[in-house]
């Protein structure tokens, strides 16, 4: 039995080891190797590296936007209206003579802000709802699951548009709308995890010890249920970026002169024949950033759970 586990690379302690492991110093190195093993695997994955580089560049340009470009994103320059890409304006200029590259670099700040905040809140919302549904079961579970299933079957963009219709336009409302429209995935995953984890012995033990529900849910089950949630969040970030861009493109999100990628695309829509570069480059940026997050998220999933495809 022991040999079988050992051969499968599962951590197994003999009685003596267990006693030693009780001293905390003994267990720390174990954890460390598991973590380094994980990072090693991740950085042997080609997709993970490409994805990580793209994400790094994206975050870097968002943070250091003012240092990266000599131009201002919202100062018109009538001497250089609708210039094609050249040495001075790498991505060309728009109808007000503003440098497209500059606007894209500043736009990455909005994409980054919206994506991270919206995903953070939808993750919290979905996780808490999923935890409650999975842990308590019964009527509570039925109600939460029904609402989740409906939210799940609707395209996120359409739901976000509905919330924008109620809330009004603007970057802040886009964040709220995306958060409210995309929590259902987390809820489903967390609920599933809770359903199986709450049957396990260590939870039984916690209950017998008289721990409060909140402590069992947040202290004991949730930490064990978080891995798939983190992977999911990595894959939700690019979706949030695209939804923000689509909403702004439709005039329902960020409003000009805010240099959101969607706003730039919208301004390029009418100039497609005259100045295709205005809409070409922001779209290309969205594609590259989304690709980066998807590659990284897929790699994360591969490394954590090699059996999934």
């Amino acid at each position: 039995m022991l040999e079988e586990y050992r051969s499968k690379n599962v951590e197994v302690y003999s009685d003596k080891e267990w006693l030693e492991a009780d001293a905390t110093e003994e267990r720390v190195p174990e954890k460390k190797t598991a973590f380094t093993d994980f990072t090693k695997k991740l950085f042997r994955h080609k997709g993970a590296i490409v994805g990580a580089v793209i994400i790094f560049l994206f975050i870097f340009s968002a943070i250091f936007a003012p240092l990266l470009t000599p131009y201002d994103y919202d100062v018109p320059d009538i001497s250089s209206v609708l210039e094609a890409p050249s040495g001075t304006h790498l991505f060309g200029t728009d109808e007000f003579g503003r440098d497209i590259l500059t606007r894209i670099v500043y736009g990455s700040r909005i994409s980054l802000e919206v994506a991270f905040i919206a995903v953070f809140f939808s993750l919290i919302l979905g996780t808490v709802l999923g935890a409650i549904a999975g842990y308590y079961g019964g009527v509570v579970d039925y109600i939460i699951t029904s609402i989740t299933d409906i939210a799940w079957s609707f395209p996120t963009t359409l739901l976000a548009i509905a919330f924008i219709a109620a809330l009004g336009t603007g970057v802040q409302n886009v964040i709220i709308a995306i958060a409210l429209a995309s929590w259902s995935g987390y809820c489903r995953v967390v609920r599933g995890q809770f359903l199986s984890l709450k049957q396990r012995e260590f939870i039984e033990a916690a209950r017998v010890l008289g721990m409060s529900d909140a402590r069992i849910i947040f202290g004991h089950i949730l930490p064990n249920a978080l891995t798939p949630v983190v992977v999911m969040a990595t894959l939700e970030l690019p979706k949030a970026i695209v939804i923000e861009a689509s909403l702004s493109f439709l005039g329902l999100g960020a409003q000009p002169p805010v240099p959101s990628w969607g706003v730039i695309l919208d301004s390029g829509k009418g100039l497609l024949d005259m100045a295709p570069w205005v809409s070409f480059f922001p779209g290309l940026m969205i594609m590259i950033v989304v690709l980066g997050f998807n590659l990284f998220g897929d790699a994360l999933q591969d490394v954590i759970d090699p059996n999934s495809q």
Partner: protein
Amino acid sequence: MVPVLILMTLIVFMIFYFAPGDPVSRIAGPNVTQEVYDNIMQKHGLDQPFVVQYFKFAKSVVKGDLGISILQDRPVVEMIRERLPVTLQIGLLGFLITFIIAIPAGVIAAVKKNTVVDYLCMSGSLLGIAIPTFWFGMLLLYVFAYKLRWFPISGDGTIKQLVLPAFAIGLTNAAITARMVRSSMLEVLKQDYVRTAKSKGLYEKTVVYSHALKNAMIPIISLMGLRLGWIIGGSVALEIIFSIPGIGRLMVDSILARDYPVVQGAMIVLTSSIIFANILADILYSVVDPRIRYS
């Protein structure tokens, strides 16, 4: 289905009921006299409690009455009826293109796993997933309408106006669908009955197409229902890019003009069609796979 529809109308109603801002000023503007204000309150039943208002709303939705547009002063149903066909046409055409491309690509990639063909299909799919649908639509518009002049630049009412938006939607959706077809197919190819079929000497092609594909299609069918919703959601931006007067465009215009009854009506129609598509997929699912029974 009924509870789902009830919940859906409740959600749509709630979104607008709890929206910040005074409903009367949404209808009549901010500067009205007290008398006009009270009149509007009464006319639209806004002075009634939430539950009463919701039941009134739900009752008229069931009767097929979606209210009257504030801006155009016409029944919302009439406006939607004019706009719905073109959206459905784009959606169905896009849906067809999605599966005509995705199923062969996914099957070939799975059968030829880890070969050049597989890598090509999967790289294409990775790119397709990353491309924003509306931007892809703009690229198609630029190349095929502005440069090559094969298709009209804006909606001209002919069948030709549907081709580019349908391709934009079909190709981007095909990317993600092909990936799912591939993994579903790989799952099936691992099964014992496939190995049995192979070992009793059947041709590779017979095994793949008549044994494996049939079983791999089962999860794909329920996927189709979900995809249809996404296709409808994606067509909103495309209708704007290609200047096609569909329901998505109507919805966006009405949101910007704060014409709430039209927004609500469009939402109800779009969401019920998505629910309907999902139910259809479920039924189809149980027909294809006799192991599944709905009680």
